């Protein structure tokens, strides 16, 4: 498993690893979250954040703040950091970094396609897209009428093109199709990313395969829960699961036939790592599942920093920052809507 990457890693990756570890130390701590949760107004949040690394990004915002502004500026910081790292990176790290954004790209494609289906304004949709998943001709997605056109017109130029090979149909786009497309794309993306990491070898492969397997399993569970009670057949459902991960292949067989949440639970509890997640939930409940998964993910991502000389830290950092932005969004929303009692519901402490 271990090569001699420690010997040569620092030639190309050392500088950026140092940078990313420095970035990580700027993540908000539990003390910060405690202070943030006590805020009365959005201005208080701004004031508190101005003492953190978000300071320069928020200082020029005029005073009646909105949650969206805060989130936008925080995301901008992440994007700036990402761009800085990408500009400094050499192969294969640059490819690795690009892989991280493909997930956002898929989400953006789906967002625009769904939006145009419901005849929303393209500019408005573009503003909602995640800036990490932007590509040149994204606005042209609105022109496409079906999958084939989507592929032929726009996506053939993007890195997503190979993932499309499984879902090119001439069917018209509708909500169901789009959702299936998203999951098929995601499946292909995760498998591709997984293969790429395996090819890199060493500690990167080891750590990333763990993180990606967790991601794949979480998606499998989510797909199962979301497709309960829809017209998706068992075989179709089975096809959407990624072909790796802890659940592959026997867990998938069981998940594919699940008809309610308790069956999912039964299938998942056979796997020790997921047992602890499900044991926190009471029977029949799926609301808190997201948070439980997020907490588990954050724990695993933090562990990625315990080892040196691998690329997993970049992935982990990006994910942790995104989680932090989700936390900030939740806190600001709670503060803005005076729902402070619910503020702890969805905040996942990172440290």
């Amino acid at each position, binding site marked *: 498993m271990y090569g001699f990457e420690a010997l040569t890693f620092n030639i190309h990756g050392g500088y950026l690893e140092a940078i990313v570890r420095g970035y990580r130390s700027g993540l908000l701590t539990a003390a910060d979250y405690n202070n943030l949760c006590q805020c009365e107004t959005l201005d*208080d949040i701004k004031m508190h954040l101005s003492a953190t690394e978000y300071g320069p990004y928020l200082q020029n915002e005029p*005073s009646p703040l909105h949650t969206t502004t805060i989130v936008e500026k925080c995301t901008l910081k992440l994007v700036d950091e990402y761009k800085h790292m990408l500009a400094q990176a050499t192969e294969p790290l640059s490819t690795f970094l690009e892989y991280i954004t493909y997930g956002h790209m898929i989400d953006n494609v789906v967002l625009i396609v769904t939006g145009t289906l419901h005849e929303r304004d393209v500019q408005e949709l573009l503003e909602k897209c995640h800036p990490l998943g932007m590509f040149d001709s994204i606005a*042209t997605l609105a022109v496409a009428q079906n999958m084939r056109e989507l592929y032929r*017109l726009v996506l053939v130029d993007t890195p997503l093109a190979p993932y499309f090979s499984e879902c090119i149909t001439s069917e018209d786009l509708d909500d169901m199709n789009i959702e299936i497309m998203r999951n098929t794309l995601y499946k292909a993306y995760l498998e591709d990313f997984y293969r790429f990491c395996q090819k890199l070898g060493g500690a990167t492969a080891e750590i990333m395969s763990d993180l990606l397997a967790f991601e794949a399993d979480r998606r499998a569970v989510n797909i199962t829960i979301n497709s309960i009670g829809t017209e998706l057949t068992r075989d179709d459902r089975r096809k959407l699961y990624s072909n790796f991960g802890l659940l592959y292949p026997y867990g998938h067989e069981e998940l594919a036939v699940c008809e309610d949440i308790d069956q999912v639970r039964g299938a998942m509890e056979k796997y020790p790592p997921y047992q602890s997640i499900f044991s926190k939930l009471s029977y029949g409940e799926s609301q808190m599942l997201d948070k439980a998964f997020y907490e588990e993910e954050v724990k695993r991502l933090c562990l990625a920093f315990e080892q040196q000389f691998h690329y997993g830290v970049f992935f982990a950092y990006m994910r942790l920052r995104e989680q932090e932005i989700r936390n900030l969004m939740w806190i600001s929303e709670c503060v803005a809507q005076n729902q402070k009692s619910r503020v702890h519901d969805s905040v996942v402490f990172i440290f």
Partner: protein
Amino acid sequence: MKYIDNLPSMDLMRSEKMMFAQLIIPVESAHRAVSYLGELGLLQFRDLNEDKSPFQRTFVNQVKRCAEMSRKLRFFKDQIHKAGLMPSPHPDSQPDIELEELEVRLAEHEHELIEMNANSEKLQQTYNELLEFKMVLQKAGDFLVPDESHSEETELDENVYTNSDYSDTVSLLEQEMQPGPSNQSGVKFISGIICKSKVLRFERMLFRATRGNMLFNRAPAGDKILDTASNEMVEKTVFVVFFSGEQARRKILKICEAFGANCYPIPEDTTKRRQITREVLSRLSELGTTLEAGLHHRDAALTSIGFQLTKWMNMVRQEKAIYDTLNMLNFDVTKKCLVGEGWCPVFAKTKIQETLQRATFDCNSQMGIIFHVMDSVESPPTYFRTNHFTNAYQEIVDAYGVAKYQEANPAVYTIVTFPFLFAVMFGDWGHGICLLLGALILIAREKRLGSQKLGSFMEMLFGGRYVLLMMSLFSIYCGLIYNEFFSVPFHIFGSSAYKCRDATCSDARSVGLVKYRDTYPFGVDPSWRGSRSELPFLNSLKMKMSILFGVTQMNLGIIISYFNARYFNSSIDIKYQFVPQMIFLNSLFGYLSLLIIIKWCTGSQADLYHVMIYMFLSPFEGLGENKLFWGQSVLQVILLLLAVIAVPWMLFPKPFILKRLHTERFQGRAYGILGTSDMYNDEEPDSARQPHDEEFNFSEVFVHQMIHSIEFVLGAVSNTASYLRLWALSLAHSELSTVFYEKVLLLAWGYDNFIIRLVGLAVFSFATAFILLMMETLSAFLHALRLHWVEFQNKFYSGDGYKFRPFSFAALTDDDD
């Protein structure tokens, strides 16, 4: 000893005496009092609310308001910068205004500006659209030329044939174009304008979307157009797309929208087009003047803001600092007074009291501000009053570590020793003069350079201008002693003491010269240059000199440790640290220095290496021919014994004595803790007096002492050796400059060719400037720095204090907000 104690205290020798003071300020005069203190800048407040987060503090709203105001001011600054105006503070600007008024005015100005910007942006948008329309009309019109359908066709064909990739497109187009004149074929077109950077992708997308059934023509638009979003001029390209069919039209329009291309319909008819062009042109000029007027108006508004901007920014910055400071204060029990604590120098006590009285008076407050001195367990901050000249030297010392409170300050000695040790390594009076000129230029422009922002390198150079001055002066001095001017010796102080053996001087290099008159009065005799024994002579001189300097400086360090111990009344340190250290160093290296001086004075041929080495190896044997003075052997044995005794002397007694003192102090004081807690009962809970816990851990103290002793004993040898860098660097410098002088300048001068001479001169001057003046200065500087930080300061300097940072408006800078 009496004499020393009675000397007047000098500012820099030890840091200022500080005191811990408590202020009780009535709420109504708090703001004014703090602002007056900020102007005075001599009180460092302690944060009494450390456990509170920023938005739980008392004056959080005011801080927020200040932050908001400074945001507005940044907005103005940004706007002024964007408009390309130079904000210059007006000399006789309007009278001071209150903060509240300023807030209102800022809000007004911001509102006004935003409105103006929005208006002009709208106008600019329309103007841009018209401008683009005009361009499209001009350029796209050339593609159409509808009146002569024949020429259009050929032009189209030509355009198509140039793109050979589109071979199947051609046939389709031709089929469509051939049947008749343009209008009947069903070919329609869309014209518009798009950013130049997007045009290729745009074309590709159109090609894909219409499956190649289109024709794309483009021409660069003449002028650049201002992009309102990014405020930059962008280049655009005019395009005309020919296509057929309604579905294609919808698709193309969507793609245009997605790419941000603006489409403008143009009539095919030439006369109509001319008419529209005329209309557009007239509206353009109309809009242009409106836009101009709007911009003018805005610039005027910005300029009037610009006059006041710096002042306002300072004011807001000060206000914010005041409220930040007020946030460090506590309310007392009655909630009518604010309680603050902080450090101030003792000499400033009356000044602060006067200031506070003034504040009370100006506020018409009935209650005065109470200022009283308390005692604190915390170690006070270190504060040196420096001036332009001494500041840089203090910085050099502080870079290693800030002095402990009231510790002897090495900066005083550094002022002379640092430039001197530098010069020993950099001795060349030609180079010294170059440095001197540089330093003088910096000092002459002090006022101008001090007020402006410099790059990091210039900043460093400027900060160290007085160090540079002293370094250059000492370099000239040392250069005169070494007798080197760009490595060339001069007969400044009379003629040489040596002459050739015969008139031809043929054997000067091999056999040598004869001394025929008195020794050269100052420095090195110029005749040594180039002689056979030049290097052995200079090396021996410089090496011995280095050791003398080193031993002297290290002795100075140990003596300073004596004054420190005296000052802090620690007789243990004097008896068991200072005395054995003195004995150890001087019995070995002090003796060596003595031998060097005796050898110089008597001109003896004794081998000092031999003397020193056999002093250890066989101390009881005679010295033979290396004997320098009577009783030397006996003295050596005594010195060796002293050195051997000195080691356990500095190692063992101190920790044991400390232990005895500690047990004595706490003997029979089983109830001591109760007593102390009683003492603290009547105090304010928020004072700085925390109970002081004094654990005595013998093994730790002993290990510490052991490390110290070993370090000193080994250090005595290695530090002395370390001073030999003075010789090494000085040798390197003179050899390097000799090489540049002889192998470049003289070599080039040997040719009778003007160009070669010029090249030689250029290479020589570049090498001198960059290698000798810059690199060598830097390296000599660093070595001098090391000799001070390590070899000198480790003898006495603990450097674990912290700096005095008073609350002062003068210290606020731009990057604070």
